[in-house]
């Protein structure tokens, strides 16, 4: 605390006890953050820890429910992204928000073009844009070029020039290195160093510990929507400390006990599965009654593998065999007929009809089965849905209510329930507990374990390593589109898996050996 008092003059941004809740989940649950002028402040945390929500609060996209946001010493509440931008906070999102069919200069000055009487001074905009690009060491990017024709790294430079055009005092970068090649990352770091030398503060988000060590000054670690550590020195904090702050849990998840029974016959056999640019040579088996978990970061190809097995994406190489039958690639209906069900990653956009009643969401796959000559049987659908709802302890028990009104955990139960109504022998779960609060998680774990006990094979993906380890019988670790490790869950521990999962971590060399 004494340290903060000394440096308080330099502090540009201070968050205290910031809370932000979404339906059914506390995304931010008391977050602290302190950013000084001219520093690179790194945000570290697993997926779902609240990093994106925090960025959006800073960028004025979300408003905090409570807590203080102090910007340049004054308490502020941004009415929207424009207000934050005007105040001097610029955000460079992972998915760059540039307009493809405008020129570099037009993008940089989008919304605040130099103009008089409504006429844009194109020449002036181009000159100023070229100047900003020069300041970033990239004078070679022509201001008049269409943004669409630039590579990802070039677009990132344009985004940064746009931030400078707003005379930003704080630039937030959300995983900027994810889209860059190795030498481009060096260039990014050079630019960041020049920005900070001019007194601009940078909030830098990355999964790669080595980058944080190279560019970062201080680190704030988020975990489950809370800050588990603030202002750690980026270079000298041991990796073990950082990793344990990210993973150590305030609430111990209770995982159901693994039964001692051996898994049954082989249900799913995947061989040599691949899609260019996403993943290659994926082999995996799932047996009846077995839970197989895949650990990996976003972009490691884990979700893509699941969707390809299910037929939502078309396989380019390899085979998927279910119950001895080879599935046609890219055919969801065939996968469903073969007894595969999937609860996709984005519940709301990929799985649910939010305005429709619970029972209709549950019977979305099976409703033709209850129908007679094409006429649906709402009564039968409701009673069947209620049976499964009770089995899953769905709350509320009223299956005629709109799914929109349910909490995240109960929405997930509706999706799982959909497949329980059918004759599903293999259930694929992509991030089954995302957006699910702690209490409901334990219930979902029990549901998944019970399913396995009844002979259903389960293939799941989670960004949360402890969840994969605690729930699965067997674990695959994926990184950059390849399976780098496959072992029984009992032979792995959390920190080893995290090391494997994080590309470029300190033990990268050993990871490569394991893969080979």
């Amino acid at each position, binding site marked *: 605390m004494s340290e903060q008092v000394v440096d308080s003059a330099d502090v540009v941004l201070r968050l205290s006890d910031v809370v932000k809740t979404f*339906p059914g989940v506390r995304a931010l649950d008391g977050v602290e953050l302190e950013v000084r002028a001219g520093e690179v402040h790194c945000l570290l945390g697993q997926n779902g820890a609240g990093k994106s929500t925090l960025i959006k609060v800073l960028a004025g996209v979300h408003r905090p429910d409570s807590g203080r946001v102090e910007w340049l010493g004054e308490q502020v509440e941004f009415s929207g992204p424009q207000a934050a931008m005007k105040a001097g906070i610029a955000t460079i999102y992972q998915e760059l928000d540039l307009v493809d069919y405008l020129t570099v200069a037009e993008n940089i000055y989008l919304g605040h073009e130099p103009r008089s009487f409504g006429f844009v001074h194109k020449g002036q905009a181009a000159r100023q844009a070229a100047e900003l690009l020069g300041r970033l060491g990239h004078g070679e990017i022509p201001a008049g070029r269409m943004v669409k024709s630039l590579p990802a790294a070039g677009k990132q430079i344009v985004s940064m020039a746009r931030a400078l055009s707003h005379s930003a005092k704080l630039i937030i970068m959300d995983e900027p290195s994810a889209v860059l090649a190795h030498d481009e990352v060096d260039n990014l770091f050079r630019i960041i160093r020049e920005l900070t030398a001019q007194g601009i503060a940078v909030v830098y988000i990355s999964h790669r510990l080595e980058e944080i060590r190279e560019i970062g000054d201080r680190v704030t670690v988020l975990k489950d929507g809370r800050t588990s550590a603030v202002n750690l020195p980026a270079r000298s904090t041991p990796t073990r400390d950082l990793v344990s702050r990210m993973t150590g849990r305030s609430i111990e998840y209770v995982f159901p006990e693994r039964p001692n029974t051996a898994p049954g016959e082989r249900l799913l056999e995947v061989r040599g599965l691949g899609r260019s640019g996403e993943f290659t040579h994926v082999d995996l088996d799932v047996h009846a009654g077995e839970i197989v978990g895949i650990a990996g970061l976003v972009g490691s190809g884990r979700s893509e593998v699941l969707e390809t097995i299910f037929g939502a994406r078309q396989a380019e190489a390899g085979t998927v065999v279910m119950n001895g039958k080879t599935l046609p690639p890219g055919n969801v209906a065939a996968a469903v007929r073969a007894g595969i069900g999937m609860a996709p990653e984005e519940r709301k956009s*990929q*799985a649910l009809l939010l305005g429709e009643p619970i029972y209709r969401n549950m019977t979305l796959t099976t409703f033709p089965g209850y129908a007679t000559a*094409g006429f649906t049987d709402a009564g039968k659908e409701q009673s069947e849905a209620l049976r499964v709802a009770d089995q899953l302890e769905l709350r509320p028990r009223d299956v005629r209510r709109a799914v929109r009104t349910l909490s995240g955990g109960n929405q997930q139960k509706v999706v799982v329930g959909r497949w329980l109504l059918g004759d599903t022998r293999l259930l694929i779960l992509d991030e089954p507990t995302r957006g699910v609060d702690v209490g409901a998680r334990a219930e979902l774990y029990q549901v998944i374990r019970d399913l396995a006990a009844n002979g259903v094979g389960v293939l799941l993906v989670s960004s949360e390593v402890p969840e994969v380890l605690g729930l699965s019988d067997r674990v695959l670790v994926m990184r950059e589109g390849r399976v780098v490790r496959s072992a029984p869950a009992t032979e792995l521990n959390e920190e080893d898996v995290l090391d494997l999962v994080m590309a470029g971590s300190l033990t990268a060399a050993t990871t490569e050996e394991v893969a080979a």
Partner: protein
Amino acid sequence: MSVRSEETVKREAPDAGGHGAPASGAVAAGPRWWRNESAEGMWRNLGLVGVLLALFAIGAIIRPDLYSNIDWVTNNMMVILTQAAAIGVVTVGMTFVIIGGGIDLSVGALIALSGVWATTVATQSFGPAGMIFTAIAVGVGAGLVNGLLIAYGRLVPFIATLAMLVAARGLAAAISGKQTQVSGDQFINSLAKERVLGVPLLVIILLVVAGLGWVLLNRTTFGRRTVAIGGNAEAARLAGINVRGHTMLLYALSGLCCGIAAIMLTSLATSSQAAAAELYELDAIAAAIIGGTLLSGGRGTIVGSLFGVIVFSAITNLFAIANLPTEVQNMVKGAIIVVAVLIQQLRFSSVTQFARRHGLSRPKAGTQQQT
């Protein structure tokens, strides 16, 4: 896609904020009929009935002479319904297409094409059955082409049906040689004059089509698929529903309705021409929208669409009996569409959220100014 999902998040915010997870269980125990989705539709339809009553009252005020005799009043109502009949049938098909997440701009042109094709000398030689069959086959066939282009050719519905609009009008003009084709068939021509228990046959056809449409939408797997695909196409696909095949059928259904409407219009005019049913697509879309069908898909009712059509028809009638020019009539129609959509949006952003936003922002804005 992303825009829509953001909207969804906004929409549900007030709901979820209203009752937390533990409380919602208790709330749900009681009957919640007033939150029922179909009840919501019922309130909207009552609103449209209110509009109809208001139009009726205005008519009675400006032309008391016409409203002095009960026979004249009933007669005028039948005129309103008869004028709504063909466009109403088209609107039923349009409602399915829009609920399924699409749009069909070609309906007016398909009516013209079906009508012209059904009244060529060659077709008329096959008698009324041949004419009806031709009209329906042409409508369904053209609808299937729309569906193929959209579902399998991956054209945007707006573009595919716009192209069909232009092409079908052109084909109709080519077939008819830009001449009005008189229907010499007594059976077809008598349809518009026929009455059953005092109700014009065309009105009965509309009611039958709407009734079948209601059953199809609310009681069959076809209707369930339509709602699912329009509400969330990705979710429907991942649930194993054949989204493309069904999308194609929706446009074929719209084409079928156009074929039926073509016969009805041919009967009314005892002729067909390439310029028939102009701008019907806009009237049908507008009627569906003011009837509560979401233009983004996933929600809508046949009854609402039916009321929408009748409201428009009643306005036309009101202006006719008041001897007002059609220009004014079109301006009023435009205003009604805007008001209806504004009401629709208000329902989604919901009054509570509106109030809360203002309750929140005022004091906060104050603090910002002070500091």
